[in-house]
């Protein structure tokens, strides 16, 4: 129960769609979604595979609680070997698509091989088939969504698609569902494009069953109340979204600015959650139209925004006048602070284009920021950029390049490589703010020390969603730690990593963890799923998943030497704010972290550790 115990295996090479039973022995060890799909991937592919070859596989995975009445039950993940990173990739998305896949009766879809010409997968309950997508190739995510809704004459069809960037090999393409929710990072959309798979359209009418409905509904009701009563999930996130953080993180001196040369941004308040509420522009209306929930979510942090009709980006372009997915904190930071741009409408427009053409705004913003630094050094010329000066603070450079990356045209092709390959091309690899090929997001590890260890050890490359120690170091959840201290951070990071891996395997959203601990997940999981799901079992599950992902990366060729940070964060001290004079203390934290993990001094899990976790 919770699971349908059914997997759809789609072989794109032969064009077959075959149902098969979910491996319930693995489900007992790995639960669902992130954990279970990573297990499948590790068993089925050679981690050394070229991520863009037909031998790579791509798994869309729900969790056992996806599509139930539990709050935030929208989540699904895409698990594959990442195009951007060559490491394990696991990108999580909300919206309505994941729950619909579950309602159609499937726990997972495994894609293998490569289609000879463009196709899309259409699922209507048990019936799944690959259909030609030649006419969709070259269309944006938004156009694809509209065409498929019309073609199938079904307003309740839920669609997940790639845009032109994913077709053309931009290495940080996303998979976008429901127009503006995305499995965003590590280039999972690039992998989808390499398989000639344009979209998945799903409609389900079968619903979801749980083991003990009465006990489940009681637990769900209690836990919804916990979310409602919490200051972050009950007030901060519904009102300001994740953008509640912009001013906070700027004040603590941890807002990477101008490619992380600085840790505070003068224009931060202009691009903050508060600014999104302020009337502005030709109609004197706020940028924010409303907040929006994903399926089942009682928090509703999502932003729906509008660009002002007279703003230079959309003037006489009515196709961009509608309301759509607005700025989340990470995107507002990458497109804004990191590039030095404080024009809220320009950022909102760039974010629309990221959704429309399906690519990751975090990596895009950090890549254009690196390009701006290379331009300042005279290494990138106006000739290469098509005459657009790539200056820090230039909204025009940002929005023009956003459109070029979306179509992989002009200098957009070069920016589509991501910052690591870009900076290598121009002879300055140290200017890429990335770990394992993936750019770090909106928290500067000089001002929030735990985030340095988080980025360095994240299995999917630098990421905030693998161990969000900001919760403890800044917000005091579950308890306050000093953001400038390194002591105790190794244990904090490990605890957050393990708990997060478990949460990401349930089908529920990580944002609940501002209010919930594993204690709050446990009664919901236990009432929904077969077997007895104790707190101990959930904790061990998370640690097992973390080590399994590490095994994947080690087999792919990564070593402990890749657990590092860009030189700038280790050598160049913060110039202003509370962290002034500080660098990140990774070298102090890392050995302790390895020890706590039960790994040797080179970062390799010991035989005892693997045996203890049943790996």
């Amino acid at each position, binding site marked *: 129960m919770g699971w349908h115990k059914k997997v759809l295996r789609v072989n794109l090479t032969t064009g077959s769609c075959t149902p098969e039973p979910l491996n319930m022995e693995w489900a007992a060890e790995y639960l669902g979604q992130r954990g279970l799909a990573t297990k499948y991937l590790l068993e089925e592919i050679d981690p050394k595979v070229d991520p863009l070859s037909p031998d790579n596989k791509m798994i869309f995975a729900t969790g056992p609680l996806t*599509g*139930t*009445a539990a*709050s935030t039950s929208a989540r699904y993940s895409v698990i594959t070997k990442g195009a951007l990173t060559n490491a394990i990739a696991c990108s999580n998305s909300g919206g*309505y698509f994941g729950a619909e896949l579950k*309602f159609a009766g499937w726990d997972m879809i495994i894609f293998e091989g490569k289609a000879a010409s463009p196709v899309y997968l259409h699922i209507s309950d048990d019936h799944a088939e690959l259909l030609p997508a030649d006419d969709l190739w070259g269309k944006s995510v938004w156009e694809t969504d509209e065409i498929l809704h019309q073609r199938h004459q079904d307003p309740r069809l839920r669609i997940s698609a790639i845009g032109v960037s994913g077709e053309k090999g931009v290495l940080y393409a996303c998979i976008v569902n429901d*127009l503006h929710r995305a499995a965003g990072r590590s280039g999972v959309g690039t992998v989808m494009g390499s398989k000639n798979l344009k979209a998945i359209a799903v409609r*389900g*009418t*079968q*619903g*979801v*069953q*749980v083991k003990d*409905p009465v006990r489940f*509904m009681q637990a769900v009701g209690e836990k*919804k109340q916990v979310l*409602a009563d919490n200051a972050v999930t009950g007030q901060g996130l*519904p009102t300001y979204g994740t953008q509640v953080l912009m001013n906070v993180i700027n004040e603590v001196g941890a807002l990477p600015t101008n490619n992380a040369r600085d840790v505070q941004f003068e224009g931060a308040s202009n691009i903050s959650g508060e600014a999104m509420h302020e009337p502005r522009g030709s109609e004197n209306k706020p940028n924010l*139209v*409303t*907040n*929006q*929930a*994903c*399926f*089942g*979510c*009682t928090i*509703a942090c999502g932003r*729906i925004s509008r660009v002002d009709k007279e703003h230079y980006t959309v003037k006489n372009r009515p196709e961009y006048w*509608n*309301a*759509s997915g607005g700025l989340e904190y990470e995107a507002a930071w990458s497109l804004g602070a990191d590039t030095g741009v404080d024009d809220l409408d320009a950022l909102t427009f760039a974010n629309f284009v990221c959704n429309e053409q399906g690519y990751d705004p975090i990596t895009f913003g950090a890549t254009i920021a690196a390009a701006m630094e290379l331009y300042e050094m005279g290494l990138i010329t106006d000739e290469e950029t098509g005459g657009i000066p790539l200056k820090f603070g230039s909204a025009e450079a940002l929005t023009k390049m956003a459109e070029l990356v979306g179509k992989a045209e002009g200098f957009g092709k070069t920016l589509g490589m991501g910052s690591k390959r870009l900076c290598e091309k121009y002879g300055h690899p140290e200017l890429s703010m990335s770990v394992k090929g993936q750019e770090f997001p909106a928290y500067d590890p000089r001002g929030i020390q735990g985030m340095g260890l988080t980025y360095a050890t994240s299995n999917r490359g630098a990421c905030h969603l693998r161990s969000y120690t900001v919760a403890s170091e800044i917000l005091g959840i579950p308890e306050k730690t000093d953001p400038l201290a390194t002591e105790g951070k190794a244990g904090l990071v490990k605890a957050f990593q393990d708990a997060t891996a478990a949460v990401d395997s349930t089908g529920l959203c990580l944002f609940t963890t501002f209010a919930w601990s594993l204690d709050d997940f446990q009664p919901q999981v236990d009432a929904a799923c077969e077997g007895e799901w104790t707190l101990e079992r959930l904790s061990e599950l998370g640690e097992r998943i973390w080590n399994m992902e590490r095994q994947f990366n080690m087999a792919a060729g990564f070593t402990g030497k890749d657990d590092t940070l860009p030189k700038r964060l280790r050598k160049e001290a913060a110039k202003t704010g509370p962290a002034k004079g500080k660098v990140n203390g990774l070298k102090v934290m890392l050995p302790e972290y390895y020890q706590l993990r039960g790994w040797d001094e080179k970062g390799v899990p010991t035989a005892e550790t693997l045996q203890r976790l049943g790996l």
Partner: protein
Amino acid sequence: MMRSLTISPDKCTGCLQCEMACSYENEGVFNPVKSRIKVFVFEQEGRHVPYTCTQCADAWCQNACPTEAIQINAQTGAKEVNEGLCVGCKVCTIACPFGTVNYNQATGKVIKCDLCGGDPACAKACPTQAITYQDANWTGYDKMRSWADKTNTQATAQA
């Protein structure tokens, strides 16, 4: 006191908790397809609108039914479908001007909101009070109050 479901679309976030609660209460499954209340998302305007039966006093569905399968619950005022009498002719689905009575393939009967016998699950599940269950004579009370609050009156009456 009779009560009515009152819907405030401006408070709806589109989470569909109401649809899940309705399908669970009435069908024992988590399945929005089986919900008697529906949330419509008007994506390009950022609007979310929950919609269900408003329990007309003089109900088209009831008047149209040839087998008298739609009956009034005296306590709640809900127009309820008596499944024993319903023959699945769907005339009520044509008669209802709002589309809130629908045919259920699985049972061969029609389904509509019955106010859960006076304790509607959708209202209880709604996290933002977009759906409430209020005094049927005063469903406009909160809206009146908010407009009263906006009238330009002095805090202290002039002598």
